[in-house]
């Protein structure tokens, strides 16, 4: 299951950090952030609840980049 979410982030290095943080989140199989399109593409583990997982992803991302937004 793959889904793409619009994100808000100010700098490219921060986007790379968000990608790292999302990848390490529970329920996420793989993640990729494009600073150019301001999108995050998340591949979920089988059976993972999307909303719960995205909550965790946002929390993890806020830790590395306090001002970031993920629209889900």
């Amino acid at each position, binding site marked *: 299951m793959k889904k793409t979410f619009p994100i808000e982030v*100010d700098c490219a290095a921060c986007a790379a950090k968000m990608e790292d943080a999302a990848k390490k989140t529970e329920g996420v199989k793989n993640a990729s952030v494009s600073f150019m399109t301001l999108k995050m593409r998340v591949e979920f583990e089988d059976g993972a609840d999307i909303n719960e997982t995205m909550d965790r992803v946002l929390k993890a991302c806020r*830790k590395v980049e306090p001002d970031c937004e993920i629209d889900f």
Partner: protein
Amino acid sequence: MNRKQKKSLYSILISFVLLIAVFVLDKTHLLPDAVCKILYLIPYGIVGHDVLRKAVLGIKNKEVFDENFLMAVATIGALCLGEFTEAVAVMLFYQIGELFQSIAVGRSRKNISDLMDIRPDYANLLNENGECEEVDPEEVETGSLILCRPGEKVPIDGIVKEGTSSLDTSSLTGESLPRTVRAGDAVISGCINLDGLLKIETTKEFGESTVSKILELVENSSMKKAKAEHFITKFAHYYTPVVCYSALVLGLAVPTLTGIISGSFAYSVWIKRALTFLVISCPCALVVSIPLSFFGGIGGASKKGILVKGANYLEALANTETVVLDKTGTLTEGVFEVTDYLPAEGTGKEELLENAAYAERASGHPIAQSIRKAYGKSIPSSSSEELREIAGKGIKAQRGDGFVLCGNKALLDENGVSFGEPHANGTVVYIALDQKYLGAIVISDRIKKNAKESLSALKNNGVKKTVMLTGDHEVTAEYVAKETGVDEYKAELLPEDKVREVERLLETKSASGKLVFIGDGINDAPVLSRADIGIAMGALGSDAAIEAADVVLMDDDLSKLPLAIRISRKCLRIVKENIVFAIGVKILCLVFAAFGIANMWWAVFADVGVLIIAVLNATRTLHIS
């Protein structure tokens, strides 16, 4: 400018004015020194409060090496050393740089999305009463009737029910010649209706339509990252901590050591140098310019009708060493036509063709169609006359008291017609009337007009070897190979032989070189996936080809292949320029800072100036001549 950028601009302006005011007060000694120093904190706070806030949050979240933290330490350090003007100015310039960056990136984002401005905003849905209603394309169900007026985009794939018009497909294919459509023709979304009113029955939902597929593909392409991007994120990962620890060594260890040796401890000089280090340590210039270059390259390519599915493929294309081409539909048009007449002695060309057309008058076979097209006149026939199609051999048609035979050698042999077999390139159709051999017609696939130039353009763009693979006969393959100038060819291959051939070529190429396979996407899936880069051409409207390939050429213009390689090479060159330039300037500034030549101003340039130049350079990838 968006709201955030405007806010940032205002705080920059206000604090700039305040800084000058305080500076004047300070220098003219109108106020006591201590008061001035406190006053300096006002512009500092206005322009830097966001940085300070994020720095605190960063520490709380154990994210120490982020640029806010670095800027905060550097400027607070400067304040502590009594360098008030410098501290405020550095923060000010840092913010100006951030604003510039944000605007520059925003603009290139917009440029690229303008390039891909094919998304239709609405569809004119016709309801049962024949009334027209403007709706979101996503709401239109398959099989609905929609109206497309001149100047509007076709919103959804469908079939024309009423009307004639020309369509501008340039935003999809890069091809500027309009395409004429009339009732019964399929139209694809994203084209612009130029002059006529079209009533279209949709055959797909919006999400499955060509325009959605293309947009999705281009948007997701930046998710597949190039090696250069991975390199730079990894580099940034180590670069920042290394510079920070060096700053620590520079600010504390060096003055302590030299102090022990010389007896005088010059901490403030070295701490200042260390703070300069911190400002230079931000990695953003590198990290933003590389994906921006690739994104620009992908955007520019899609404007030309070349869809690249990932930055990794765009990067790989630059190192194309071997190009393997399919024959039919790639080097040739894939449209069969009569190319030669070989009438027997005593038979005219007209008589030969007329008899062939007579026999082939009702057949739907491509060969029959090409013969009828060559004949060009209507064919008189009476329905009572027998017409028999002999599978795999040809046609036996009654004509008056006798028969016309039109087919392959086996058909004529079987009917006892003897003749000398001619030598020809292509499919040969033999014709006999009343047991007498009339001659043969050669039908072959036309070689694309630009095939030869495209292949030589490939050679000019670093391709070492071109190979043609085909399932066709040796004679035809040899002919096409000679005419187009491919280096090697292999004929009479089955699909699995093609895969084996590609595998063999993969083994013989150099380690860094890439193998590209290009075909029309039909029956090519295994080879497309086996090659380093699989390119499908003529993919307009073919989902399977879009699915299977790494790069998709929207029309069947072979010259797009050398163009794609050229775009890729240009993009890679810009990426390399940016890497060398950004890393070079930063290291240079670090060295200068260590020796006390570079001050904070240099550091701000090394950080923000480099970033802006790199971003501007990266946007060059958008423009393709």
